[in-house]
């Protein structure tokens, strides 16, 4: 049984490992549809295809690096963790990183991932200069802004549905240290939280944790963290000896599936109250240096944290609402969650910058809210309610997280879906050879 990071849904999938690109035509000749899968960090059903799911983890060779320009050429199965391990000590950092370093380059492109710097730097795809894509006949095509440009734009955020991404070229950025100067500010309600985002536009990285069980006057209260990479000159003496160090790997592990009964309104409410008070207390303290690993990937320190939600798994709900609609829309979403009493450990709010070039890319200018819920009886109704609010406010859901959205609502959220389908029909065969449970469910 195979599943995404949320462990829901789990499907019986035929799984093959691609070891060399020369072996891909053989897999395609079987005549079934297939989907490429990276490190399984999308939450729902994006990297599942019962007919054939192709693991790209063995396609993990780096091909070239230009130390003059920072341009890295690597295969699609290379992990972000490997890029960090290789290049941080040399003073380079990826232009965009998602909330985990355990993703592949191919996965980052297929989901066109965003990071805490989206408001300034856009998505990962915006930094990809070119990529090599295998089509339904196994033949490869170079795609960039000048060559096969339509296919390139469809592949950024295209969820692997335009072909198999084999390799890509993108530019790393120079950093002087591995540390981020970070500060955390408490916000008493949603207005304050959003005002903090507006006031933090010049900070390269910003994100807020929201206490999604708070209601009434405290609705949308939370802790906003913002940060910027430190220059060598301002590093405190204790960090000077090894300014570009890598953090030791996380040793914590969730050893068993946590019984679902432990996750209830009381336990999560206490957890959130604790976090808020802890953060608020610290917020008065000054900005402090934080290693990038902690700043960007706090959850990577806990191996298999998805087990926190027990055996049935969990769903993550992430949507974005256009800026004008966001204050009312986010409030409505939070009210709905608080009313249902199904708080999540992780409720994250972030201000996005402008929409990027990927036809199916998720971010648009506005606020994105991410929540997760254990899968149980009331979850589907809650998600449907959230979908309805998102839809009413002109927003859309993130396909890399989705497992439940209704096709009609999803389609309205992605106005460039028609253009995407046209490119895919041309590039991926008719009917398309590259398909997933997600594309089947949403009739993409």
């Amino acid at each position, binding site marked *: 049984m195979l599943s995404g990071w949320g462990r829901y849904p789990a499907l019986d999938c035929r799984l093959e*490992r691609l*070891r*060399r690109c020369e072996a891909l035509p053989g897999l395609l000749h079987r005549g079934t549809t297939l989907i490429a899968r990276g490190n399984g960090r999308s939450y729902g059903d994006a990297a599942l295809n019962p007919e054939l799911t192709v693991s790209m983890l063995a396609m993990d*060779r*780096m*091909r*070239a*690096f230009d130390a003059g320009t920072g341009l*890295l050429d*690597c295969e699609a199965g290379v992990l972000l963790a*490997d890029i960090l391990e*290789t290049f941080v000590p*040399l003073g380079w950092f990826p232009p965009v990183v998602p909330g985990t370093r355990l993703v592949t380059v191919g996965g980052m492109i297929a989901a066109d991932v965003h990071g805490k710097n989206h408001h300034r730097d856009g998505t990962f795809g915006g930094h990809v200069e070119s990529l090599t894509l295998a089509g339904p006949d196994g033949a490869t095509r170079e795609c960039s802004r000048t060559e096969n440009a339509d296919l390139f734009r469809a592949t950024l955020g295209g969820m692997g549905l335009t072909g198999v991404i084999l390799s890509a070229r993108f530019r790393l950025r120079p950093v002087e240290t591995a540390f981020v100067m970070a500060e955390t500010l408490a916000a008493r309600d949603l207005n304050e939280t959003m005002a903090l985002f507006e006031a933090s536009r010049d900070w390269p990285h910003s994100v807020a944790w929201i206490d999604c069980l708070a209601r009434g006057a405290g609705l949308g209260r939370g802790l906003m963290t913002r940060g910027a990479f430190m220059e060598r000159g301002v590093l405190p003496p204790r960090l000077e000896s090894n300014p570009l160090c890598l953090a030791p790997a996380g040793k914590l592990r969730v050893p068993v599936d946590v019984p679902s009964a432990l996750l209830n309104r009381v336990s999560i409410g206490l957890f959130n109250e604790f976090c808020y008070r802890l953060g608020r207390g610290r917020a008065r303290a000054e900005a402090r240096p934080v290693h990038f690993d902690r700043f960007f990937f706090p959850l990577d320190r806990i191996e298999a944290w998805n087990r926190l939600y027990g055996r049935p798994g969990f769903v993550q709900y992430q949507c974005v609402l256009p800026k004008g609609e966001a204050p009312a829309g986010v409030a409505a979403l939070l009210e709905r969650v608080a009313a249902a009493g199904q708080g999540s450990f992780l409720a994250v709010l972030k201000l996005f910058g402008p929409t990027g070039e990927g036809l199916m890319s998720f971010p648009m200018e506005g606020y994105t809210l991410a929540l997760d819920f254990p899968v149980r009886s009331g979850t589907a109704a809650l998600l449907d309610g959230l979908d309805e609010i998102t839809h009413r406010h002109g927003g859309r859901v993130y396909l890399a997280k989705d497992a439940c959205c209704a096709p009609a609502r999803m389609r309205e959220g992605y106005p460039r879906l028609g253009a995407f389908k046209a490119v895919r029909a041309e590039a991926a065969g008719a009917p398309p050879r590259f398909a997933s449970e997600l594309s089947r469910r949403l009739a993409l």
Partner: protein
Amino acid sequence: MNGGVETALVIGATSDIGRAIAYALAKDGCALQLAARDTARLARETRDLRVRTGVAVTSHRCDILDEDGGVSLLDTLDSLPEVAVCVVGLLGDQAEGQRDGAIAERVMRTNYVGPALLMGALAERFERRGGGVLVGVSSVAGERGRAANYIYGSAKAGFTAFLSGLRGRLAACGVHVVTVKPGFVRTRMTDGLDSPARLTATPEEVAAAVVAAIRRPRDVIYVRRVWRPIMFVLRAVPERLFKRLSRL
């Protein structure tokens, strides 16, 4: 620098274990000479290791099935390495090997004749120089012939014995010989085999064990400790009983 090791030769560098060992050595700043049969795949590994580690990496074609066991490889090296690691191996299909002598011979030559000739030739040069470390990756399958894989096992047994003799001969002149018996390893070779998790190492674990055995010379290493008692028992079982456990 890796305990004074400046250059290491990895034969069979396109295998999963070979790649992991090369990476672990290069991470310590050791320059690499990579040898393998398939030059296209070798070029891919060479580039990868260069980008990931920044060390100097040269690539060399070497076919262990050549008449000379691939010894002509040694003439293509710019310098004689301090360390040479042979990771060449072919599991083959036991049933096919039983039916077809050519298939059995290929397994025998890949696992024994070629590696032994090559390690022997390297030993000559290391002995003349008066130092170095030779690492041969053999197998627990060579400890005792089992019905399920005795063609492979017998060849590995030969290689293990060869390395053992070589170690004795070279001990006096400062050349050290390490025999590695990794047990199950999650690699291409074992794709599709369902091996017990506790007995199955990753290529990275093998690499770490090999690098440790080069730094502080060891004679025979199993990667996961659990194999040592298992193999002790397996060797001690009387043949009369072992025969009945034939497909163990």
